[in-house]
């Protein structure tokens, strides 16, 4: 007995080909985000102050800038996956769902790019 639906057979996409991919990436990025955030919060709490010179001086060091860039990629990837699941679960109208998913992806990538570029600018000493 075939357990596939006719449309599933036409599309040629059986279950478990890519069904767990999103789920797996969300778990993977949650581990990396957690590790990087432990580093970030400890480093932040250990800074003598949070004024401009201290923060840019700290982020100017390779051993602060590199993990910070990884943290940004990991965190924004994780939040893009997470927000998308929330949209998929609660927005049922097809058009609105597609629009919301596009919005979530644009939001995550645009904000992540701004954060990423800001760290690069500080790290390469281009601050005004």
């Amino acid at each position, binding site marked *: 007995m075939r357990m596939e639906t006719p449309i599933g057979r036409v599309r040629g996409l059986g279950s478990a080909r890519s069904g767990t991919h999103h789920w797996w990436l969300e*778990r993977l990025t*949650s581990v990396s985000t*957690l590790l990087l*955030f432990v580093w970030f*919060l400890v480093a932040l*709490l250990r800074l003598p102050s*949070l*004024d*401009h010179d201290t*923060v*840019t001086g700290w*982020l100017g060091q390779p051993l602060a800038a590199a993990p910070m860039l990884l943290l940004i990629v990991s*965190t*924004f990837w994780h*939040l893009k996956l*997470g*927000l998308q699941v*929330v949209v998929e679960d609660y927005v049922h109208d097809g058009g609105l769902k597609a629009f919301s998913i596009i919005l979530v992806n644009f939001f*995550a990538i645009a*904000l*992540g790019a*701004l*954060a990423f*570029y*800001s*760290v690069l*600018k*500080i790290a390469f000493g*281009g*601050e*005004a």
Partner: protein
Amino acid sequence: MHRNPARPLSPHLTIWRWGPHMLVSILHRMTGVGLATVGAIAFTWWLAAAASGPEAYDSFRDCADDWYGLIIWVGLTWAFFQHTLSGLRHFVMDMGAGYALQTNKFWATMTVAGAIVLAVLTWLYILEVRS
């Protein structure tokens, strides 16, 4: 999409007795969305302001140090610990463990209590260092 309104439906939220596991489940989503929106914007604003120069950084700090800024930081601290602890609970449950009723209830409660304790400890430390 065609739907038969007379089809049998599984019982939904309203029929279940409220328990800590349900609270933690929805808190995980709410704190996740909060961190992903408010947290991500605050974090990026901080970095972009630092990269833009001292004046931009000052205007960030004016908001960050104000009373409403403080409420947001405390809220984000709690949301971070709640999301982290319930996320760790998800790892255990992904391995197929921790589903026995009492165990599940216990650890659900512990994530809520643990997040509050960790947030309070963090802020005690911050205020201790500042003073």
